[in-house]
């Protein structure tokens, strides 16, 4: 056998296995011929399984029967060929689909000694989080990092990732939003210049074997199996309702046996909180922002009958005052309102007195462009629904919520909204105002939470 022959069967098998290690892919996703697949060590299985009369998707592990449907299939000629609707956005997995996988047992990744190229320093609180991660890399298991908005959670991860790389491990950072993948990937590439880092999201073009560090939307994890030694799940509480359980399964499936799971969040849900508080889940709190200043505490302002006033086309007095005050400063404003419908009726009356105000919502096709103009201070006031509560950071920012008592503003949404203000080291005093007709329990809990964090951070 010629060792250098790229087309020799062994060579092809090696390329194929490299491509497949740690993944579970549809036939259509494999750029290899049927013969090459047949001669390889890849393991094939059916796309949809029947276990005790119930369907299970072999890719995303969905077993909710309502999310299986069937059609008369032209491929397999079955009258009803069942398929999984849960992971359909990644290509259909049906009873006649074949999935291919390769056990990652024999897969090795390069060992990198001191691969971190970062000159920054950690705040004392960040250092605490970083220590906890270093420790967990040895011990494996689970770790919750409960870090306030603006704690600087990315830097907290650096040393831990560096350590995992010295062990030749493979790491994944999973986040619910594509925006975050796009923001995070270049930063990680920057500080680990010698490591292969891949960004995966819906529509990303990664035809290659993915790298040793993967930055991915959580959905892309469905295509992985026993791949990672460490999975870092960002904004673990932010998953849409219907995905919760399956995404958790996907995270587990993507990890190797004896892996480390790190959960990052500023607003853990009840379940996580309980597990942390009863000692069942190892956790570390980072109650202070990286710049060392406490979180701005929301002020409650009564805006009696704001709903009726808006219907009459009038701006409630308290809001009007807030807008006027903002106008006289060089600060930017974020105004949250409960629904897209209200946004539409409400915007013209705001623009009457505030011509440079703009609105943005989740389905706005110009969303990216508007957020950019807001960051560049071309838009002074952005009126929005809850979609921007996470992620957007602007210097010199005041934040207000109109109708803070509405159901859509949950405790964690309000904490996240409040967390937009005062993030920059040179302006830590942004104001947060909740305008309300009545006070909700969520509003009270959000403020209690913020006060508690400030108290703990003051120690």
């Amino acid at each position, binding site marked *: 056998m010629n060792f250098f022959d790229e087309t020799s069967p062994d060579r092809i098998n090696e390329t194929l296995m490299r491509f497949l290690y740690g993944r579970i892919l549809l036939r259509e996703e494999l750029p290899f011929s049927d013969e090459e697949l047949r001669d390889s060590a890849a393991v094939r299985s059916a796309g949809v399984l029947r276990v005790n009369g119930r369907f299970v998707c072999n890719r995303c592990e969905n077993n909710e029967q309502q999310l299986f449907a069937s*059609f008369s*299939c*032209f491929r397999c000629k079955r009258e009803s060929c069942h398929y999984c609707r849960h992971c*359909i*956005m990644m*290509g*259909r997995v*049906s009873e006649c689909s074949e999935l291919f996988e390769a056990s990652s047992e024999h897969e090795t990744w390069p060992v990198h000694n001191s691969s971190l190229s970062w000159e920054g320093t950690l705040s004392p609180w960040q250092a605490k989080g970083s220590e906890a991660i270093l420790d967990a890399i040895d011990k494996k298991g689970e770790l919750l990092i409960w870090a306030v908005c603006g704690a600087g959670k990315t830097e907290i991860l650096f040393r831990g990732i560096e350590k995992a790389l010295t062990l030749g491990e493979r790491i994944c950072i999973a986040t619910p939003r594509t925006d975050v993948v796009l923001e995070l990937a270049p930063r990680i590439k920057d500080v680990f210049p010698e490591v292969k880092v891949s960004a995966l999201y819906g529509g990303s073009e990664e035809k290659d074997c993915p790298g040793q560090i993967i930055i991915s939307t959580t959905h892309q994890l469905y295509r992985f199996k026993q791949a990672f030694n460490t999975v870092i799940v960002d904004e673990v509480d932010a998953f849409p309702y219907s995905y919760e359980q399956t995404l958790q399964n996907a995270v587990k499936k993507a990890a190797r046996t004896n892996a480390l799971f790190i959960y990052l969040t500023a607003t853990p849900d009840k379940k996580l909180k309980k597990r942390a508080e009863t000692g069942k889940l190892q956790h570390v709190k980072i109650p202070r922002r990286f710049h060392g200043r406490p979180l701005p505490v929301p002020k409650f302002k009564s805006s009696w009958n704001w709903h009726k006033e808006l219907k009459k086309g009038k701006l409630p007095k308290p809001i009007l005052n807030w807008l006027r005050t903002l106008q006289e400063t060089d600060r930017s404003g974020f105004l949250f309102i409960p629904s897209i419908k209200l946004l539409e009726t409400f915007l013209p009356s705001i623009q009457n007195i505030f011509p440079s105000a703009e609105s943005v919502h989740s389905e706005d096709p110009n969303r990216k462009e508007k957020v950019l103009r807001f960051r560049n201070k071309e838009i002074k006031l952005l009126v929005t629904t809850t979609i921007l509560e996470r992620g957007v950071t602007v210097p010199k920012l005041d934040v207000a919520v109109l109708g803070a008592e509405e159901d859509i503003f949950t405790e964690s949404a309000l904490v996240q909204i409040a967390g937009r203000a005062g993030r920059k080291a040179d302006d830590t005093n942004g104001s947060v105002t909740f305008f309300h007709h009545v006070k909700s329990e969520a509003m009270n809990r959000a403020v209690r939470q913020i006060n508690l964090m400030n108290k703990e951070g003051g120690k």
Partner: protein
Amino acid sequence: MSRCLYCFTPYAFPLSWESLFNLHTDNGLCEECSEKLEEINGDICEMCGRPFSLFPEQYRQENTCNDCVRWESDIVWTGILAGNRSLYVYNPFMQEMLSKYKYRGDAELAKVFYNTARKMYKKEFQKHILVPIPLSEERHLERGFNQSLLIAEGMGPVHNVLIRTSHEQKQSKKNRAERMNMENKPFEAVEDVSGKKVLLIDDVYTTGSTIRQAAKTLRDAGASSVSSLTLAR
């Protein structure tokens, strides 16, 4: 509690006056998704069914749009298609929905359209036989199902009269002259439809040329009239 066919959110059907009197056609969607669908009604081009409210007045000649006037003034095409009706505006949501249905292959989404399509069928096209636009063998295998056939099956008994003679080329990649050309016929009729009124079923009416090509083939095979119904326009 059922789940929205599109976004999977559990929802309860709102008990309103509309639903009590069954004015609202159940489409299996939650309220939020339902609102994003724009039903076509009101002032439309009497030929292709496109809503006049959505395009400039100068593209209109009385009750017909300019596109249709052009088709009808070409002697090859005069009177070939009796008319088209479409259910929904091809807005961004409808584009997303149809792309999930066709390209991701989520066959279940056909159910969103069953009731509305059936209603339109009964109201406008009584005594027509249902003929779906076919896919080529290659495309059919790739997709696993024919999106137009699935819709037609939801409306009534289907007659698979047409087959593709060649692999379909994207209509949008051809220029207008090529689209209007009848030289290389894309369809063939495999059943006699003499004296029958035919209703063609397709997912989207864009240029109208696929549907007219199919209509021409059916007219040549004896159909007394050919109309079409599409999900989007």
